[in-house]
């Protein structure tokens, strides 16, 4: 059974919580943050594992700046939050690409990242971090579609708008991602 940590968390209560946060209530903002940040961080750990925490912090700075101007329901709020996070990641990757980077073959062996086998790790403990690592094995689009649909609770059309793809392409990418995930888990010997 899925335990949702983001999605229809507030429900009918969302407009009041949002209005209170926009009116300066720190308690209301804390509720929004507590409900959204874990999912946001997990999404960022898949699409930007090296700078997820920084990207999350920058995302909240942006969200706080635009909080009083935001208008919309809970789904729009989630879409705005993840759109902001995705743009932060894209901006950060552009900044990194402009910097001169040291080639990997020049780096000492002990400095190279040790990549654990995500499937093996998942076999040991199918926890949240293992699931994140598993999704990191997927192509970027498939992983993003699965994360945005499962973590953020967005429907196909919202994800399509967020990613700039057609709903059909998003649907296909999601299905392919799940099939590929099933293949990875089956290859690792997970049979229930």
């Amino acid at each position, binding site marked *: 059974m899925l335990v949702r940590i983001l999605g229809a968390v507030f429900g009918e209560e969302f407009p009041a919580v949002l209005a209170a946060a926009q009116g*300066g209530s720190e308690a209301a903002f804390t509720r929004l943050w507590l409900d959204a940040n874990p999912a946001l*961080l997990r999404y960022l750990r898949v699409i930007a594992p090296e700078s997820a925490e920084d990207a999350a912090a920058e995302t909240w700075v942006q969200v706080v700046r635009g*909080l009083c101007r935001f208008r919309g329901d809970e789904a729009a709020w989630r879409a705005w939050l993840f759109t902001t996070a995705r743009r932060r990641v894209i901006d950060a990757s552009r900044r990194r690409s402009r910097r001169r980077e040291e080639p990997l073959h020049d780096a000492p062996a002990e400095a190279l990242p040790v990549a654990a086998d995500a499937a093996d790790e998942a076999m040991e403990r199918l926890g949240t971090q293992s699931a994140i690592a598993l999704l990191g094995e997927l192509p970027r689009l498939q992983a993003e579609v699965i994360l945005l649909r499962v973590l953020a609770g967005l429907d196909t059309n919202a994800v399509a708008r967020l990613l700039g793809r057609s709903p059909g392409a998003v649907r296909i990418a999601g299905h392919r991602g799940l099939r590929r*995930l*099933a293949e990875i888990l089956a290859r690792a010997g997970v049979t229930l």
Partner: protein
Amino acid sequence: MTGGGVSGNDMPSLPRPARQDVSDVDDAFLESLLAGNGLRAGAGAELRPVADALAALTAQPAGDELTGLAAARAEFRRRVAEPVRVRQSHRRRSVGLVSRLSVRVASAAAVVVMGFGGAAAVAYAGALPSSWQQFAHRTIGAPAHGAPHEARAATRAAGSAAHRPSSRHAAYQGPSGGSPASHGSSHHTRPPLHAAPPTARPFIHLVRPPIVIPVGRWPSPWRTTVHWPVRTEQIGPDASGSNAASGRGVS
């Protein structure tokens, strides 16, 4: 796959995980997983690990996922809470200022209106000091200073500058004793100068220098005389000789 010269039997027999064909999984089951509805009944066992992985993905947050709250709250206080508080205090202050200003402006306007209204009433009653009365006479058509009561009444009744000549004609009535109506409407009929009895007290006599406008080639009696502007002369009991001069303009 073996290289050249190596038989296939030389390759070790490695155990391989059982591959399950997931390509035939119905899209409806996948869509149910993506929508967060869990594994639907009838779904194959090959999707069970996927459902578990997604459940782990949406598990309750761990401690390290809540560490950025203090920074976010500080940013919120700086960007939202403080500006909102400042805006609210400014709004309250501005509302109070506007109400106080409104009361003051309304009071000042009432005082000004009452002052002007009262001054106008006094001016039409002819009770202002001479210089002020003259000013009121020029600006709002109040009776001139020294005008008799009847002239003031006529001015009050008539109103404005269209009847100023009447009030000026009324100045004749003092010495002549005629009625304002008999002289105010016709500028031809000036009081006979000889009828003005010399009095012991000098008085101001308004004299109009005539402007003669010939109308066509009509004879002299048909000329029209327009009196404008007004000139004043002092006429006294011993100034009877000047009466002849004041008779200029009668055509």
